[in-house]
Every structure is written in structure tokens, then in C-alpha cells.
């Protein structure tokens, strides 16, 4: 920082302090992305423990209590530590460059919202080393297992969730403020790239539901420590109340984890099809509809809790409705590819896999919406397969597609296309071998969150585990690709991709530390 005072055209500070004190959207974006990748590997390690234990029937490697800690920590870390921060990292890097802004609207808040995260997750993972063990009640932490019957470390969990929530809310405020106030002249709302649109809507979702999550963990805190009975029937409370409040947060949360992915794919497919995105307006309206519907479907996670039939029917119909705007999006992507002039670089491969596999997760989602059928699917591996299809080859593939797509812009070098393709194909095969058999396991009757299972589930479990190990190992390739790309490689042009459109591609590669200190030429802003 000291160098900044006497240098008018200042660059980043040197050394570690650059990363602690930085208010630069690109630095903070990189911090978020590296943090997310570290959490992805940590959460992935927990998943490997789970798949190793489930490789064969019987208990081999871990005790059931540790197994439950693994499923819980895997879920929490992947949702709050890997997927969400990755999207915030991408937002930081890309939104200012896409809308022609010099930086985020609230740079110091930006620094703070990132630096809260490592402490939140340090606190959460430190519980693994405590006597009582880490949280073991599932990432959905249903009461009273997470209150009256919880390990003592539940308090650390509650505090960590509060901090993550504060970080998310501040990040969202920053994104909304940036998008609404910092657009370059000429960048009207309906000319914004879809990634910016989807993030704008996501940020509103976050602001709406993170306080609800904070509320529900605070109620838990009071039940655990201060003698209230929000979720304890013995004291006049209701354990089902917990689920209503949790899923009022939880359902929008799953859209928070996918909407920015929609935006990414909507940028990548037109680039490599060399054709404008089909139905831009309907994409924006579909995203908004999905966001609205996400608030009125929460109890489809609770079809078996014993709701009255009117409630069951309402939530079934509302949930089925989501298929309409989601379908519109998928049709638009396919129509964009139709009669394009396609090439298949790594980002495009990930984007195409996203469309296909996310849609498969959407199909099983539609099946799960059918309430009577859900009575059979609920809490089985069918559900595990469903949400992993939308989250892994869905959200995570979109994040990887984004990393490959914008990596040349970030580093100034082309990544190793051969390694990238290897990473893609191993991930693609791995993820399907991992999750596809889980549909069969669930239909055949295997409950989720069990450390051991009956013999008829043995075969699909070992297949799934092998897929898991393959998928897990493949992710190290991504690490190699990224490091190689930062260190060197073929010089990237400003345009990078032949068919790419948008303000970020008018900047040289790597993008300068400060961009658009003066607004870009309005002529560069094209119709969507």
C-alpha cells in the first residue's frame, strides 16, 4: 500500500499484505476462487471417505458417528464453502468488466466479506478435532437431532453459519449496488450479459433468505443454551417448524447455487456456436420466474412430514410449475446451438455437459415433485442422485466452464487445451459412473445417510465409489491446468475466443489491474 501513495499509476501492493488489504475486485475475486477450490478439495476429501466406506457392505474404515460427521461436513463445505464462494469470486472478477465499471461499488465491504469466510470455515472444521466431534446431524440439521440431541460443537456450527451468512449478505449488497449504480453509459438493463442478470437476481435471493437461515440457527442457539422450546414438542414447540423455516431458506438457496451457472452457460454457448443467444428476453424473464417460484415450493422437501393434503397439493403443483421456465432455458440453449458453427474447446464441453446433465437432474426433480411418488423417493439415494446431478455436473461444471473460459483473460495465457480436455472427459465419465447408479440404489430402496447397507445394494455402491474416486482424482488436473496457465503458456489475445462478445473481451489479456477508469465507448456495447 505504501507504494501506492507515491505512484500515481499504482498496481498491487507487494507480498502477503496485498491479499489482506486489497480492495481490488480482481484480487478479491482470485481470493474467493482459490478459497472455493481449497474447500472443494476438502469437501471432496470428505466425500472420498464416504465413498470408501460405502465401497462394500459392512463397516470397514470409519465408525457410524464419524460417517455422519463426514456427510454433514461434506454438505456444508460444498454448499457454503465451494459453490457459493466460487460464484461470488466469478462475480467479483467479471461483473465490473462486463458492465464497464472500474471496480465493485463497495470495495472495503468486499474485502471484509471475503476475509470473514476463512475464519468461519476454520471454526467449522476445527470441530473435527474436538472431543465431541464435528456436527453429525446432516447439512439440513433437522431439530431436535441438531438441538436437544446435538454434540456440544453445535454452537461452533451456529456461529460459523452466522458469519457465512453475514459474508453472503454483504457480498450480495455489493453486487446489487455495483450492477444498479456502476453500469457504463449505454449499458441498459436489457443489454447486460446474462451472467450479470442472473447474479442480480441471485443477490436478491440471498438477501431475502440468508437472514432466514440466521433466524433458524439463532432459534437453535436459544433451544440449546437458553431453555427455549422452538423445536421441542416437550416444551410446546414443533420440530416441523424447523423444517419450514429451514427450507424457506433452503429452496431459494438451491437456485442461488444454479442461477449464476445459467448465466455462465448463456455466455459460453453463443461464443462457441458463433451465434447470438436465442431468446435473451425470455432468459431474463425465466430467471426471474424461477426466482419467484423458489419462494413458494419449499415444502416439497417435506412431503412425508404429515402435512394436510391441501398443503401437499399446493406444493406439488407449484413445484411442477418450475419445469416451465427451466424448460424454456434449456430449449433456448439448444436453439442457440442449432444451426450454429460450433467448436468444442474445454469451456464448451463443460457447458454442453452442463445442459445435458443438469436437465437430467431437472427430470428427476420433476419426478420428485409428484407427491405420491415422492413418498417412495424421499430420503433415498434417488434424491442423492438428483441433487448431485444438478449440483455437480450442474453448478460445479458451470464454474469449471467459467474458469476455462475466462482463464486466458485473467492470466494472459492460454491454458493447456489437451489437459483441459482430459480433465473434462475424466470428470464427465467419473461423475456419471458416480451418480447414475445412485438412481437405481434409491429406487431399489437404499436410504441416504447410512454408513452400511443391505447386500442387494452392494454392486451399484462399488460402481458408484469407483466413479467417485475417478471424479475426485480428476480434479487435481484442474489444479495443474490453472497453475500452468498462471505461470506461462501461449500469449492470449484480447479477444481470446473467436466468437466471444462483451466488454471484458475489449480489454487486453491479462486484464489490467484497474479497468474502465473511464467509461468504455458506448459503441462497444452490443445488443443481446
Amino acid at each position, binding site marked *: 500500500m505504501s507504494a501506492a501513495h507515491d505512484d500515481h499509476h499504482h498496481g498491487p501492493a507487494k507480498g502477503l499484505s496485498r491479499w489482506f488489504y486489497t480492495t481490488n475486485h480482481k484480487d478479491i475475486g482470485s481470493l474467493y476462487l482459490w478459497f472455493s477450490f481449497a474447500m472443494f478439495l476438502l469437501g471432496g476429501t470428505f466425500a472420498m471417505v464416504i465413498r470408501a466406506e460405502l465401497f462394500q457392505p459392512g463397516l470397514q474404515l470409519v465408525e457410524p458417528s464419524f460417517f455422519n460427521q463426514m456427510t454433514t461436513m461434506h454438505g456444508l463445505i460444498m454448499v457454503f464453502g465451494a459453490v457459493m464462494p466460487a460464484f461470488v469470486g466469478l462475480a467479483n472478477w467479471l461483473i465490473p468488466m462486463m458492465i464497464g465499471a472500474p471496480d465493485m461499488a463497495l470495495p472495503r465491504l468486499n474485502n471484509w466479506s471475503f476475509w470473514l469466510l476463512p475464519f468461519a470455515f476454520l471454526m467449522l472444521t476445527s470441530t473435527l478435532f474436538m472431543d465431541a466431534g464435528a456436527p453429525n*446431524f446432516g447439512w439440513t440439521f433437522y431439530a431436535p437431532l441438531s438441538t436437544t440431541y446435538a454434540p456440544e460443537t453445535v454452537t461452533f456450527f451456529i456461529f460459523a453459519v452466522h458469519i457465512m451468512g453475514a459474508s453472503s449478505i454483504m457480498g450480495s449488497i455489493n453486487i446489487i449496488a455495483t450492477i444498479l449504480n456502476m453500469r457504463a453509459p449505454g449499458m441498459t438493463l436489457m443489454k447486460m450479459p446474462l451472467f450479470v442478470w442472473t447474479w442480480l437476481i441471485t443477490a436478491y435471493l440471498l438477501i431475502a433468505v440468508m437472514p432466514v437461515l440466521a433466524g433458524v440457527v439463532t432459534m437453535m442457539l436459544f433451544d440449546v443454551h437458553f431453555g427455549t422450546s422452538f423445536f421441542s414438542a416437550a416444551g410446546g414447540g414443533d420440530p416441523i417448524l424447523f423444517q419450514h423455516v429451514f427450507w424457506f431458506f433452503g429452496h431459494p438457496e438451491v437456485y442461488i447455487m444454479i442461477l449464476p451457472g445459467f448465466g455462465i452457460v448463456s455466455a459460453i454457448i453463443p461464443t462457441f*456456436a458463433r*451465434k447470438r443467444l436465442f*431468446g435473451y428476453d425470455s432468459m431474463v424473464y425465466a430467471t426471474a420466474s424461477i426466482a419467484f417460484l423458489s419462494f413458494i415450493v419449499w415444502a416439497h422437501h417435506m412431503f412425508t412430514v404429515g402435512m394436510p393434503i391441501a398443503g401437499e397439493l399446493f406444493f406439488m403443483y407449484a413445484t411442477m410449475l418450475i*419445469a416451465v421456465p427451466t424448460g424454456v432455458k434449456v430449449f433456448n440453449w439448444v436453439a442457440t446451438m442449432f444451426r450454429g458453427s460450433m467448436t468444442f474447446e474445454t469451456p464448451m464441453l463443460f457447458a454442453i455437459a452442463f445442459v445435458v446433465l443438469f436437465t437430467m437432474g431437472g427430470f428427476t426433480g420433476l419426478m420428485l415433485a409428484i407427491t405420491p411418488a415422492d*413418498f*417412495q423417493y424421499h430420503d433415498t439415494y434417488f434424491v442423492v442422485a438428483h441433487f448431485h446431478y444438478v449440483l455437480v455436473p450442474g453448478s460445479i461444471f458451470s464454474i469449471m466452464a467459467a474458469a476455462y473460459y475466462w482463464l486466458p483473460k485473467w492470466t494472459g495465457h492460454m491454458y493447456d487445451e489437451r489437459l483441459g480436455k482430459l480433465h473434462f472427459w475424466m470428470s464427465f465419465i467419473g461423475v456419471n459412473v458416480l451418480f447414475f447408479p445412485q438412481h437405481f440404489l434409491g429406487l431399489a430402496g437404499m436410504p441416504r445417510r447410512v454408513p452400511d447397507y443391505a447386500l442387494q445394494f452392494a454392486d451399484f455402491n462399488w460402481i458408484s465409489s469407483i466413479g467417485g474416486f475417478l471424479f475426485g482424482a480428476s480434479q487435481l488436473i484442474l489444479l495443474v491446468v490453472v497453475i500452468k496457465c498462471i505461470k506461462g503458456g501461449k500469449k492470449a489475445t484480447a479477444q481470446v475466443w473467436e466468437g466471444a462478445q462483451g466488454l471484458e473481451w475489449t480489454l487486453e489479456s491479462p486484464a489490467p489491474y484497474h479497468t474502465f477508469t473511464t467509461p468504455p465507448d458506448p459503441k462497444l456495447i452490443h445488443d443481446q
Partner: protein
Amino acid sequence: MLSKAKLWLGLVVAALMTLSTNLQAAWELNMTQGVTQISRDTYDLHMQILWWCVAIGVVVFGAMLWSIINHRKSKGAVAATFHESTKIEIMWTVIPFIILILMAIPATRVLTEAYDSTESDLDIQVTGYQWRWEYRYMRGDASEEEVLFYSNLSTPSDQIDNSLPKGEHYLLEVDKPMVIPVNKKVRFLITSNDVLHAWWVPAFAVKKDAVPGFINEAWAIAEEPGIYRGQCAELCGIQHGFMPIVVHAVPQEEYDAWYAEQQQAAVAAREGANSVVTMSAALQQGEEIYSRTCIACHQTGGTGLPPAFPALAGSAVANGDVEANISLLVNGVPGTAMAAFGRQLSPVELSAIITYIRNSFGNNTGDLVQPADVTTILQEAQ
């Protein structure tokens, strides 16, 4: 080339054969059709929505694949310039909507039927415990002897820790199954004593959460005699994977005979409270109950899993005051997994188990607890 491919194929097949532990039932792909009208209707719904998805998938992925094959730059494809079409966009909003309505109609019908739990022939209260099920058969009147029992996992821990080969119904077998008559409407009143559980029998398409303080209803008319197996479906703590459900559906006469037998057994258990037991009988019975009821938490050899599950070997309770020991078993420890076994086990069983733990795992008190000692404390507890 060919021989190499054959070699790989051979290797894969060999791997499949060795790893396949139960070839017969191993490759189950689909939902069970079950043995009730509702379970068959549910299966039909499942297949119907599945085929819709397959059909939509074929069209969408087909169009995509066709574009990927034909519209690639390497083949000289030149990109078209169209980027919207109101007509087509309305079409692909309306058609899915119509399909959804077509699906919603049968789903609503089946749900309405599944929710009609009125006019049952037999009511059974199902209560979830960490980690066993309690089945209480509702009586016609209070003078009748009540049939109430607990249903525990009966798979030996040696099979779970892989020191013995696993049996056919590994993890799906219990010491005492629920018995119901066929072709009768049986209503299940489902609740819980501690955390959430879920009572699930796939063959009946019944899955309902067991919620402490609330009673949920579900029902089934089993149309074929048989043994139907299920599991707890809601994460309920450490032994969640180890609380199976087994239901025997039997003809009415067989059910009546079984029911009468249970009533007699209940009378005998009550009278047993006045009996005097010997040390060797108590130790033998105690060991049996320990391996069924206590071992999941307190482990083989009484080592426990501290801090959640204390060790019994050398514990202050098992080596201290007898009455305090009895009281702890009878009343449980609120807020922990230690249930109040006064409700779950008979005085004879309680006395045997206490005698056993006070004289095993290196504990050496020499105490022989009699059923009458337990009865005294049970009465105090009430």
C-alpha cells in the same frame, strides 16, 4: 487390437463376478410395485412421469446431438443469425404446461386415496426410538391385555464388523417383526420418542416421518401374505442405518393366533416380575439382551464410544450403588441417547441386563439383581 479388447472385456466381467456379492437381487433397477393398490398406483405414476421425461429427453437431446454433429465449424457450418421467435417460444412454454397438467391429474387422484386413512380394521401405534421401533396394537377396550413390543435389529455385530460372513437379510432383519393380517386396512399411527425418524415400507408405498409430540397417519391393505422389509428413512443419529422395519403379512387366522400368543406372553412377563432368578440364568439372558439392545452404543466389551456413549467397563455407575444403576436404566438420561428402558424392557429383562453389566467387562461387583428390585424402582418412577 481385438485380442486386447477381449482381454479388457474379460477383466471387467471377472471383476464384476468377484465383486458381485449377491447376483440374484443385485441389479435391481426400479421401484417395487409392492403389494397394495396404492403402491401399484404409485409405481404407475413413477413410470408415467419417467416415460414423459424420457420422451422429452429424446427430443431435446436429439436436437442437440443433431446440431453438434451437423453444425460444427470443422464441417464448414456457417452460423445462422436468428435469435428469437415468439411463436416457437410460446409453443415451448405451452406444451410443457399441458404435459404437467396431464401428470398432475393422476397424481392428485392417487394422493387423495393415499390420504384417506378412515375406517381402518386395525390400528397400530408405531413409535420411533433411538434406535428401535415400538409397535403398540390398539385395543378394542381397556380390559383387554395390551400387545406392545420393541423391534430391534437382529443382525449380529460380528457381521457388521466383517468378522463373520453376512446373512441373506443383512441389516434388514429384526428380533420381533410387526405382524398384520392380509386384506385388512391397517392404520399406522406414527410418532417418535426422541428425534425424527421415518417409517418406510417400500412394498406398501408408506413412508411417514415419526415426529416427537405429533402423530402422523398412514395405512396399508397388504394383498399378499409375505415378509416386507424397510428401513428408517430419516437421519436419527449414529445408528440410523441400523433400525430396520420388518412386517409379516399373514392370513387372518394366523394373525389371530399370533395375537393371542402375544397377549399370553404379556401376562407371563408381568407375572415374571415376582420370580426369583439365578446368577447363571441372569447372566445368560443379560448377555443376550445386551447384544440386542445395548451393544450399538456401549459396544462389544462395554468400551462405549466416549464422549457420546460412555464405557461400561469400569464405569462408576456399573460398579457403584445398585439402586442408582437400576434407576438410570429405568429412567434413562434425558437429553442423551440413553433411553428410559423401564418402558422398553420387562423387570425380568432389566434385572438380567443389570446383573450382566455389573459382572462383565471386568466389572466384578458380584451383585445379583432380582426382578422385584427393579419393580420397586419402576413403581417409584411412576
